[in-house]
């Protein structure tokens, strides 16, 4: 197959002006941290320092929670719901107006391809605010009783894989339901959250309704364990999620929702349209460099079509373009951090050491920055670490099965239960599989689709609670 050469098509950085340093966003103002501590955020594609960001300590967390409490009591909870909704509509519109700027900033700070930040992340961010804006004055129809009440102050901690989208998943429903928030973005990707703080200012959102604290694990811990926080929402690793569940066990009043890790099975039956399935497999694991909690990281292929699917998959992977996240042709961007790259390497080496066969397409990696080629492991057994542990990178483990029952058995053989995929032409089999896969989201003949109206969240150790849709409102209401 001829390989097409692509001329570079870089998206301009000129649309973004990054400040040298950023403070914490508390009570409507940017302020330095109490102890003056700060850290740097870099572009994972080039290791260039983008900005210096304040690191919030316990005193800052306290200040932010107090600001959120005051705003909750004096402003936000007494505002007529339709006015609350109008603020959210306003924010949604400003996000659309500044979408390209936010997309470029996201790709710079996170390393994800501009094609994804522009076409997936940002449209979904705006959609989340639009969707929840409309709920603000309709909560009595949501099925949680005639006058559902907000919880109060929400402490929210989000990951680095979809920085602004995860912010939207957290802030939009919290505000729509009448809560105020203190949100901590991930330490490697704080910049779009800080730009969101500016958007709150542009929208004239009352001070203290949204507070943004940058920092790392200690800041997050101080936030979720703060006694003034009524609601904890966390997206991140299962390990940290369990720690939060243990901490919050001491305080039965605190409502907790957790959206954690996954090890999704993507099940391909012999009657599946192979080309579509291969597109789905690629989207399932190589979208966002595999930094996706619901990534289809275990491919289960029916034995009779294994050779055909694998050949087609390898052919397709050879066409993926890895490189500059700001190039509009790029399919696979940079790994978000040196630490994450080390983890992906460690697990991949364990895969080889345990006897699985490793394959990557010919792929030149840039010299600077953090990069990992799309990688496929075959000959993987269920006992291998790469079949059990979440890698959170562009690494696919391929297993096989003979019968639908065996596929279900293998797919469910994990402590996780976030998502699953099924590829088959047979409608009855889709419904049969969907009923048996123990996962919160089942994609049939598609994968990695998201929508604000569609509830998202896991079974078992993938966490509890749902985000999105009518179900997602429950997390922010006293019900």
């Amino acid at each position, binding site marked *: 197959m001829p390989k097409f050469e692509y001329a570079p098509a870089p998206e301009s950085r000129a649309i973004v002006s990054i400040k040298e340093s950023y403070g914490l966003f508390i009570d409507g103002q940017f302020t330095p941290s109490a102890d003056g501590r700060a850290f740097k955020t870099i572009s994972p594609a080039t290791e260039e320092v983008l900005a210096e960001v304040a690191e919030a300590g316990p005193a800052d967390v306290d200040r932010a929670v107090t600001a959120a409490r005051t705003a909750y009591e004096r402003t936000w909870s007494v505002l007529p719901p339709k006015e609350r909704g109008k603020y959210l509509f306003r924010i949604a519109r400003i996000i659309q107006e500044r979408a390209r700027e936010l997309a470029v900033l996201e790709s710079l700070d996170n390393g994800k391809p501009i094609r994804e930040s522009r076409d997936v992340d940002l449209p979904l961010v705006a*959609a989340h605010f639009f969707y929840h804006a409309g709920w603000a004055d309709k909560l009595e129809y949501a*099925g949680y009783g005639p006058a559902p009440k907000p919880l109060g102050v929400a402490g929210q901690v989000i990951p680095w894989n979809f920085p602004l989208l995860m912010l939207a998943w957290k802030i939009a429903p919290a505000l729509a339901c009448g809560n105020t928030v203190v949100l901590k973005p991930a330490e490697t990707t704080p910049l779009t959250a800080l730009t969101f703080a500016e958007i709150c200012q542009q929208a004239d959102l009352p001070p203290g309704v949204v507070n943004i604290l940058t920092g790392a694990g200690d800041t997050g811990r101080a936030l979720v364990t703060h006694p003034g926080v009524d609601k904890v929402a966390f997206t991140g690793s*299962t390990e940290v*999620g*369990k720690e939060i*569940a*243990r901490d919050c*066990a*001491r305080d*039965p009043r605190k409502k907790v929702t*957790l959206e*954690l890790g996954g090890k999704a099975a993507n099940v391909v039956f012999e009657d599946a349209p192979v080309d579509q399935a291969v597109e789905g497999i690629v989207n399932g694991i190589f979208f966002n460099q595999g930094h996706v909690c619901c990534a289809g990281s275990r491919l289960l292929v029916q034995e009779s079509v294994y050779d055909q699917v694998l050949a087609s998959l390898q052919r397709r992977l050879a066409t993926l373009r890895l490189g500059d996240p700001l190039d509009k042709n790029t399919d696979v961007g940079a790994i978000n951090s040196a630490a994450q790259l080390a983890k992906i390497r460690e697990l991949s080496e364990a895969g080889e050491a345990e006897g699985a066969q490793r394959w990557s397409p010919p792929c030149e990696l840039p010299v600077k920055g953090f990069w990992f080629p799309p990688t496929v492991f075959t000959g993987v057994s269920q006992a291998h670490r790469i079949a059990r542990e979440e890698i959170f990178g562009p690494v696919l483990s391929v297993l096989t099965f003979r019968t639908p029952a065996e596929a279900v058995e293998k797919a469910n053989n994990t*402590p996780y239960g976030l998502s699953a995929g099924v590829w088959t032409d047979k409608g009855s089999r*889709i419904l049969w599989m*969907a*009923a048996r896969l123990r*996962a*919160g*989201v*089942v*994609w*049939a*003949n*598609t994968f990695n*689709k998201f*929508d604000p*109206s*569609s*509830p*998202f*969240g896991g*079974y*078992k*150790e993938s*966490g*509890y609670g*749902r985000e999105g*849709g*009518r*179900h997602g409102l429950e997390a922010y209401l006293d*019900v």
Partner: protein
Amino acid sequence: MSDLPARLAVRKTYKLYIGGAFPRSESGRSYVVTDQKGEFLANAAMASRKDARDAVVAARKAFAGWSAATAYNRGQVLYRVAELLEGRHAQFAAEVRSAEGLGARQAEAVVDAAIDRWVWYAGWADKIAQVRGTANPVAGPYFNFSVPEPAGVAAVIAPGASSLLGFVSVVAPAVVTGNTVVALASERGPLPAVSLTEVLATSDVPGGVINVLTGRTAEVAPWLASHMDVNAIDLTGAPAEVAADLAAAAAENLKRVLRPADDDWTQPPGLTRLLAYLETKTVWHPVGT
């Protein structure tokens, strides 16, 4: 001779209920159950860690079948339990009376309420999916819907003070949606719950769907809270001083935790307990020709 009754009553042995069978505790232990005045009522089985683990195994084994039964079928099976309870109304009233120290009419009212509660929950079996499910209008050519599914095996620490109505009120909402249950009966007044297992055994509820342990709450509850094959736990009957520890132990495999609340069992229960044991599954499929 005149002190002796004309006929000696045949007493019942109160045992555990695991996987549809009535074993004694594998530990060989029992404990004395008295009425509110301290008079001896019976020796109840004192369940051990091993009994708790056996009960979880039985509940897990029963989960596939019970959760796959049609909602209509589950509703009918549970409604039949209420029918059988009604037939033993007098027996339960007498047991509740001794367990809780109530007057005859009060005890009868409690049994009435327990039967009615069971009927109320049985009726939810084939309605909860319509109340809790949604078709989601996603922005794209996809059919997208969400349905409730049972979380799996639920451990239920039944309330201490309400031996029958409380027990029914915490067990029924878990099983009706397809979960299977390991229930730890009131430590102080376990006998009505044990008699309920005799009703279950002669109804159509498959063995293992509801398992009932009696014994020391403080001894058995931690084994259930930390068990890695339990998906959800209701801490209603856990003493306040240990509830936080149990919730922390439950975090080890991220069990869904229902925390103690000031429940008034005579009030309409609402949906809280039903929803506590439900997951939401969302399915996407493309639409096209």
